[in-house]
């Protein structure tokens, strides 16, 4: 547990001081590091956990050599972004600030050295970790815990990196949803993510480096996660680029009655729906399959050229 409780949902100040959170923008280029991605380009963010106890294949890349091996693999498989995390989302043994920095920052440095141009994201809610990671070469701060630490946006601004603005329904970092209800979950998601995005812009984060993320399973039961999947167009219609992180999550498992090792088909189905509805970044364990699913959706949309078309045409 993070016991600092720096911020949390109450620390944003009144919404009306920030202007209407529903304010729309035109979809435009996404910028990370030196890269620019146009709206039609769907990006795979590969998960690389520097943890011994994440929910999916715990400890798989706990070892640094294994983690670097995973980076080599996902880059070869076509990942556009790697997302490095040092603290699992689920409750568990405390990971201190120093411990989190030790798990992630030297590794970010090593990845940056191996891949000067790769987009590196760091999954953290703590501003101190964010700052150290940016100095080590990170391009994006994936704030899965929804602005719990308000200073993280300031760090993103100071370092000139990107920021993910997510929704957790006010959950304390590393806690599980418990009987949470919403009058309208998508309205809450929009309100929170757009407020965070606006606050980030006010703090000085480049708007073309900001993503919004409904954060499936975070502060949401399975019905809520299905609802935000169904209504994802409400988010994409804002013009802010949307990131979705659905890979192997519990709402997929509960929907299909599938254990954590049997959620790939469900993951790809939700991935495809999200892509169809306009999401642009997809956080994933399975890079090859996700890339294929996204390419297929993009081809159906008319945004991606088929590899080789001969059927009926020779």
């Amino acid at each position, binding site marked *: 547990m993070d016991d600092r409780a720096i911020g949390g949902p109450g620390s944003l100040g009144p919404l009306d001081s920030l202007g209407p959170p529903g304010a729309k923008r035109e979809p435009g280029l996404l910028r990370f590091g030196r890269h620019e991605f146009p709206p039609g380009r769907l990006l795979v963010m590969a998960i690389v956990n520097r943890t011994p106890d994440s929910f999916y294949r715990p400890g798989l890349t706990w070892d640094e050599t294994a983690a670097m091996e995973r980076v080599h693999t996902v880059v070869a498989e076509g990942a556009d972004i790697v997302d490095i995390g040092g603290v699992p989302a689920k409750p568990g043994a405390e990971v201190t600030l120093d411990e989190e920095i030790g798990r992630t920052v030297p590794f970010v440095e090593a990845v940056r050295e191996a891949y000067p141009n790769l987009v590196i994201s760091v999954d953290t809610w703590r501003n101190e970790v964010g700052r150290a990671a940016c100095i080590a070469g990170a391009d994006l701060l994936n704030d899965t815990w929804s602005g719990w630490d308000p200073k993280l946006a300031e760090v993103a601004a100071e370092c000139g990196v990107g920021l993910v603005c997510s929704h957790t329904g006010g959950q304390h970092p590393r806690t599980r949803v418990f009987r949470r209800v919403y009058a309208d979950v998508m309205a809450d998601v929009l309100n929170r993510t757009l407020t965070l995005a606006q606050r980030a812009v006010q703090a000085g984060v480049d708007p073309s480096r900001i993503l919004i993320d409904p954060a499936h399973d975070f502060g949401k039961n399975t019905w809520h996660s299905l609802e935000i999947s169904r209504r994802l167009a409400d988010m994409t219609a804002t013009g802010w680029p949307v990131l979705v992180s659905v890979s192997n999550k519990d709402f997929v498992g509960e929907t299909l009655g599938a254990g954590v090792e049997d959620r790939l088909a469900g993951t790809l189905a939700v991935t495809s729906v999200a892509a169809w509805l306009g999401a642009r970044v997809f956080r994933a364990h399975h890079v090859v399959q996700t890339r294929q699913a996204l390419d297929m959706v993009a081809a159906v949309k008319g945004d991606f050229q*088929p590899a*080789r*078309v001969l059927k009926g045409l*020779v």
Partner: protein
Amino acid sequence: MIIRAALCPCPPILAREVTGRDPVVSGMREACAEVTARLVEVGPDVIIVVGPAAETAGWDSASRLDLSAIAPALGGSGTPGLPLSLGLGVLLLDQAGYSGPRVLQAVGEHEPAPRCTELGDKLSASAARAALLVMGDGSARRSPAAPGHLDERAAPFDAQVERAIRDGDLAALIAVDAALARDLMATGRPAWQVLAGAMGTGQPITEVLYADDPFGVAYLVAGFEVAPNGAGQAGAS
């Protein structure tokens, strides 16, 4: 009369746009471009495009390939209903930068040989210096993976056509069996016979630039030169 002629295949994949990221048949396209450029170079009064279609008909010379009929996502401003063979021929002319007069002539797939040669003769007589671009393919039953699966008769059939073209043997083209050609899905048959009719009684000098069947369909790219003066064989008048 016809002063120079060319034969090109007309599968939809001739259009680069439709094959996706892989160009697939670059060599064939290059050969088509080369042989079409030769027609333009000779400076004809008109280029006549002949291609097989459901019905014999002339088409407006401003017609363009309707790419959206092949690949709706590619859209475009083509002419609805224009037979593929003519559309692809027009595409070759445009790609060669030809902007002179053109005549687009579809020849019906069921037209018997005499009607085809007669049409060829008429086309030849329509201009003093005409070039002819003939679109048409051999059998589509050359392998188990071919569009029409394997038919053992396909290989000898195509070999015979190829020989006739290499030798400039117009009589052999006119003699191609229409029923067998239909069985073998050799859609080029009426167009070859228009070509034979248009070249008249002479024996043209031919050059085959490409002959292959990468997908079980026989593709042939060839150029035809009217025999030089003194040979006394060229011309239909």
